[in-house]
Structure formats: C-alpha cells, structure tokens
C-alpha cells in the first residue's frame, strides 16, 4: 500500500521510541521488571515537580482560556473594525510560535531585576517589585511568561467557535425578551462551553509539555526540566527512572486527550 513508507517512518521514529520509553520505565537498573522507578516518582523533588507542572499548566490554561475568549470576542463582535481582528489573528499566529528561548529573554528584559518595566516602576513610580516579593523566576513569573504563548493559542482556537455563534440566536433571544446577559447565560456560554473546555485542555497540554521557556528562565521545578536535567546529568543516573518520569508525563497527557476528544465531538455537533 502507498501508505507504507509513512507508517514505517512513524513506527520507527515515533512509536518505537515512545514504546521504548514506556516499557523501559518498568525495567530495573540491572534488568528485570520492577515498579521501583514508578514508586520513585512519588518522592521529592519529582512528585513536587509533577504537582507544580500540573498546577502551573492548569493556571495558565485557565487564565489563557478566560482572557483569550474575552480578547477574541472583543475583536470579533459587531462594532469592532475588521482590521483589528485580522491583526489579532496574524499576531497570534506569530506569538503562538514565539516561545522558548527568545520569549524567556524578552521577559527578562521586561520584568527581570534590571528589566525595562522593573526600572520604570522603580524610577518613575518608586515601586520596587522585587522588594515586594515578585520575581520573574518564581512560579508566578513563569506563569506570566507562559501566558504569552497560551493567550494567542486560545485566541486562534476559539475564534472559529465564536464565529459559529449565529447572529440569529442573539436576535431571536432579544426578540423573545432576553437582555444580553440572559442571552449569554442561556445560549451563548452553553453553546461555546465545549469548545472553550476543549481549548483549555489543549492549553493545558501545551503548557505541561513545555520545556525551553522554563529552562531558559532557570526554573527547574517542572517535570519537563527535571526530566531533562536528570537525563543530562549524572552519568550514574538510572536511565529507566528518566523513562518513568516520561511515562508519568504521558499518563497525564493521555488523560487530557481522553477528555478532549469527546468534547471536540460535542462542540462540532452543536455547530450545525
């Protein structure tokens, strides 16, 4: 069959490595089957890294989700000039790809200890954010940075769904006596909800799998960075333990996928 080269390639370079990792998680250091790698995950700093990753991903997914919808809707709704929406779409396409190393530095230049905004607040408003407990290199700081690629992703993903809100529904609701907020409560938000939830899950996975940004910021309390550090680190470290970490990641992401796919279907059904 003509699809053979593709499946062969996918097998060799996707399934095989992935399988190797998942299976290897159960191998002992000197061969044999063991759960010790898995149980090892439940110790610090690994369990902390997992929890932190999940929390950070959740926060940026929700924040990105909520603000993304609000911004996207502001750009799409009646009354806003068309060019604003085009600009937003184009910019979001770029910003969603502007992650990792350059993004991390952009924020260091902005909110780092000698960042432009930090200095501005210090010199013009006499407010030292670092003295007040803020630091770019904490969880909050990293969350602010993550938002830079989470927001655009949300905007791109949710815009088609917002387009799908037919004008007739709003007019029919008004005609039947509903105020705008009643429309949103009874029709608008319920119809958008599957798409919004699906998009938030996408954002969660996106944040959870992210590595470069946090690495560049020197923030290590994330499972991706921890995994990378472990792998690159000590020559004596147990490769199977690294694989167990990967398995843990895979489990979280697979769970997200399992929730995402039915949501996607529900959203498509109501789009008719």
């Amino acid at each position: 069959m003509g699809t053979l080269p593709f499946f062969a390639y996918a097998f060799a370079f996707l399934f095989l490595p992935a399988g190797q990792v998942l299976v290897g998680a159960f191998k002992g250091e000197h061969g044999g089957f063991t759960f010790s790698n898995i149980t090892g995950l439940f110790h610090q700093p690994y369990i902390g890294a997992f929890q932190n990753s999940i929390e950070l991903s959740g926060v940026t997914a929700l924040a990105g989700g909520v603000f993304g919808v609000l911004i996207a809707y502001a750009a799409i709704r009646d009354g806003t000039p068309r060019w604003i929406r085009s600009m937003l779409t184009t910019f979001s396409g770029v910003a969603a790809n502007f992650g990792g190393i350059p993004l991390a530095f952009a924020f260091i230049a902005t909110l780092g200890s000698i960042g432009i905004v930090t200095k501005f607040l210090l010199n013009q408003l006499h407010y030292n954010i670092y003295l007040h407990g803020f630091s770019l290199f904490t969880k909050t700081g990293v969350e602010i940075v993550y938002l830079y690629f989470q927001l655009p992703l949300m905007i791109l993903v949710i815009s088609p769904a917002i387009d799908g809100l037919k004008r007739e529904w709003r007019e029919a609701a008004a005609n039947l006596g509903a105020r705008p907020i009643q429309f949103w409560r009874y029709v608008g938000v319920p119809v958008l909800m599957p798409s919004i939830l699906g998009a938030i899950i996408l954002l969660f996975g996106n944040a959870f799998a992210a590595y470069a940004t946090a690495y560049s910021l020197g923030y290590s309390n994330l499972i991706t960075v921890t995994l990378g550090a472990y792998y690159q680190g000590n020559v004596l470290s147990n490769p199977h333990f690294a694989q167990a970490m990967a398995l843990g990641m895979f489990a979280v992401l697979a769970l997200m996928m399992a929730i995402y796919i039915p949501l996607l279907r529900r959203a498509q059904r109501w789009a008719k």
Partner: protein
Amino acid sequence: MRLRMPRMAPSAYIWLFLGFAYFFIPLLATFLFSLDKNSTGKCCTLHSYGWVIHNPGFWHTLKVSFLLALETIAISLALFVPTVYWVHLKVPKLRPVLAFMALIPFVVPPIVLVVGLLDVYRGTPAWFYAKPWGFLVVAYVILAFPYMFFSLDAGFRSIDVHTLTEASHSLGASWVTTLLKVILPNIRAAALAGSFLALAIVMGEFTIANLSQFYTFPIFLQYVNETQAYPAAALTLMSFGITWAAMLSLLFIGRKRGQRAAFLTGAR
C-alpha cells in the same frame, strides 16, 4: 446588505487594549534593552546588534538551523504528500487514523520523544546519530507532522482528487508524473503553508537539540542569553523578526489562494 452597528462596545476597547499592552510591552522592553550600552546599561547604541552580526556563531547556527528546516520540509513533503494523496484517493477510511496519529505528538512531547530516540538509536552509525542532518531531522519531521498533515489534508479536501487523477491517467501520465505535475501544483498553497509552519518550528526548536547536544540557532540563543545580556536582547528581536517573516509569508500565500492556514504553536 447588512452593516455593522457603527459603535464599538466599551468593554471591547478595554480587553483589546489590555491584550495589546501585554503583547507589545515585552517587545518594546526588549527593543529598549537592546539599545542599552553594555557597561552602563543606559541608552543608546547599536553596539549589541553589531555584536550579533559580527558573531560567527550567529551565522553558523542560523545556517545550520535553516538547512535543517529545509531538509525537514523536503523529507516531510516527500513522505506526507504521497501518503495523504493516497489516503484521499484510495483508502479514505484511513483518514481518521492519520488524523488520530497527528494528535499523538501532543501526547508524546519533544522531551519524551528525544529521550526515546536517543535510547533506541544509540548504537547507530555516527553519520546518523552524531550529525544533526540525520538524528535531528528525523525528530523534526515527527514534530512537523501534525501541522503538515492538517495543512495538506485541508488542501486535498479542497480539490477533486479523483477527477484530477483519472483525467491525468486517461491522458497517459504515470503515477509519479501525476503526483508531481498535476497534484502538487494544485495543493501548492497547503504545502507551502505546512512548510512555513515547519520552518518556524525547526528554527525555534530547543528541547530536542539541547538534549541531543547539537549546536543549532536556539542553542546559540540560549548561550547568548546566559553570557551576554544586551546582545541577547538584539538577538531575541531578530529571532522574533524571523518568525514574523515566516508567518507573514504564510498569510500572503493564504490570501493569494484564499485558503486559511492553521496557526498553531511551535517551540515552547
């Protein structure tokens, strides 16, 4: 003819302004930072940009990453175009399978993929394992696959594959000729869209390159970040500019052919 209500909602102003501020301020800050003098930290000089342009590492890694991107695009197209074509033409039942597979890289993120690849292919000859042109590209093709697939799939859905193929065959063309001379030109916009996305992804990919210890453009970026603050700002902006250029090309192509490209995320 239906016209919009002329007035823009007040809440729309607020959200759009907040969004604009959040996106613009870091870029502005980076720009201002890049103009600061190295020693005093005050404005204004183009010294940092000069540093970048005169740095051999910059050109070397830029070239490497760019060539990697081209290689990735070439292999991706060679692998995915015939596959998607075949599926659309002969085995449409496999399409959902392909679509599902396009979601798998979502579940197997780069950090996991690289660990697996390094393990499985450890024993392979040096020309593959120790060179970016082998190992890295192989991984990058996998990374680019979802975006390539969704682009190509949309492209193939917008043309009548059966009619074109049958017409071509009836005029005596072989499979290869049909693919190259008939099909490819008709999905050009989709293929280009996928290619530019792949370009953006490869030019920004850090995770796999870092763990497999290859010296690519993002690796160079990180090195500069760690060692030279002000040039790092200049470099950051230039890197942003490269992504912009890729995306604008995408938009331009999309506008020309009237197809909408899918913008999704790359390096994180």
